[in-house]
């Protein structure tokens, strides 16, 4: 039991799930994109869609996309900061299947005309979040620990390759999931580690055969 979940977090109000959690979803999505987004579509589901406006969920999500932390007092004015940062965004609502009531589907572009990245994030209470979908593949991670996300062509050798690269750097693996796309062909590994993930490891993983992409996010 962490006492700072009882006294704390220090956060911009009014709601840990609808505000602080929303900032965190935006922030993790930005880290997954690995570059500042220039364009974003934010599709709100369930309670996010119903009461999000009154809770500032919209401004919180955009703040996260700009890289603000949940205690950043600029959150209420994030739309103004988005303009300054050249982030073009649009809100809408969506009905996601089997989604948590506090969910959002984020479509993010690192270049205006490129292919967007898609993330579904859920705010599960007390400011904690889970990423539930990444580019159409269902998965689940909290982003509370350093996390590696590796997309590969579905080939059993890839798991061994990636594990080897991690263990050679004496990094402890806390959890390891492999999530396959229902369409087949591609899989996503989600690896939670005990120590921060460095760019050098990501570069090494990217150079392996059958790896499509890899990103690492540190809390």
């Amino acid at each position: 039991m962490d006492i700072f979940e009882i006294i704390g977090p220090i956060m911009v109000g009014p709601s840990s799930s609808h505000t602080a959690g929303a900032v965190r979803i935006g922030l993790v999505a930005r880290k997954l994109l690995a570059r500042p987004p220039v364009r974003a579509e934010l599709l709100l589901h369930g309670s996010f869609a119903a009461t999000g406006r009154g809770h500032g969920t919209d401004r919180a999500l955009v703040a996260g996309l700009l890289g603000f932390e949940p205690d950043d007092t600029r959150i209420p004015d994030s739309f103004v900061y988005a303009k300054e940062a050249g982030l073009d965004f649009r809100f809408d609502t969506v009905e996601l299947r089997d989604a948590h009531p506090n969910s959002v589907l984020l479509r993010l572009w690192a270049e205006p005309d490129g292919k967007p990245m898609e993330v579904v994030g859920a705010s599960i209470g007390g400011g904690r979040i889970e990423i539930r979908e990444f580019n159409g593949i269902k998965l689940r991670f909290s982003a509370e620990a350093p996390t590696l996300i590796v997309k590969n062509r579905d080939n059993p050798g890839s798991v061994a390759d990636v594990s080897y690269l991690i263990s050679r750097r004496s990094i402890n693996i806390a959890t390891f999931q492999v999530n396959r796309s229902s369409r087949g062909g591609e899989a996503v590994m989600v690896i939670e580690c005990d120590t921060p993930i460095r760019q050098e490891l990501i570069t090494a993983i990217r150079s392996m055969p059958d790896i499509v992409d890899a990103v690492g996010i540190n809390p």
Partner: protein
Amino acid sequence: MIFASVTNLLSAAEKSGLPLWECILRHSAEESGIDPAASRARMRKCLDAMREADASYDPQQRSRSTLVGGQAEKMRLQAEAGRSISGEFIGRILAGALRMGECNACMHRIVAAPTAGACGVLPAVLLPYAEKYGTSDEELVNALYIASGFGCVIAQRASISGAEAGCQAEIGSASAMAAAALVYLHGGTPEQMANAVAIALKNLMGLACDPVAGLVEVPCVKRNAIGAMNALTAAELALAGISSAIPADEVIDAMRQVGLSLPGALRETGKGGIAAAPTAMRFAASFFG
């Protein structure tokens, strides 16, 4: 596990020979693998953030729904003019609780304690107390450890989430934590803190979570005021040597049971209680259009 029950918490402190706050600090730091000094610095930051939030209040500001804002200022003026029924100290506590609740609704930076909706209760009693009795910041930080220790037990045995167990778990828990902190500051024993926790929780047992339009505004802001007054009441009783007929752990378990039996309409869905009053429904319809 010292946070599994109030009994464990108190006996762990007694066995260690440490003051209760220090026992809570050491155990929690060890559990999360952080240095006790770092924990203390972090708690100190929470205290500073409470003060900053209180100072950030703007009487002109209204929440996005326009339901909330400016009320704390009315209470402050009333108290300062000496017109409050129960005197300036109580008036200040009431104003402080409203101020923090309004700050939260207006998207200021606050300290969730234990939640954002209930963030006004602890600072509302601690800050005026410290001013009146000249309490040092070090003592206030100790008091926050006391509050968090009892809060941990409530979170583990029952809940601190309105969506799970109703407002008794948010404002009720905040009030119990604040009551224990006040007993500590006023020189009470750990047993008296446990009694204050039990009394505070009993007084708010069954409180529904029924936010109008699902927003943390009505009735949340004003419930911070009653949470603070209830903390003061429970602390006064406990300090006078009055004990709770039902031990704190059993009260917490009862609160859990009540939470489980609350219908969904009374657990933060904005569908029952005050949220279902005709005026509330009209408001919700016009706000979400």
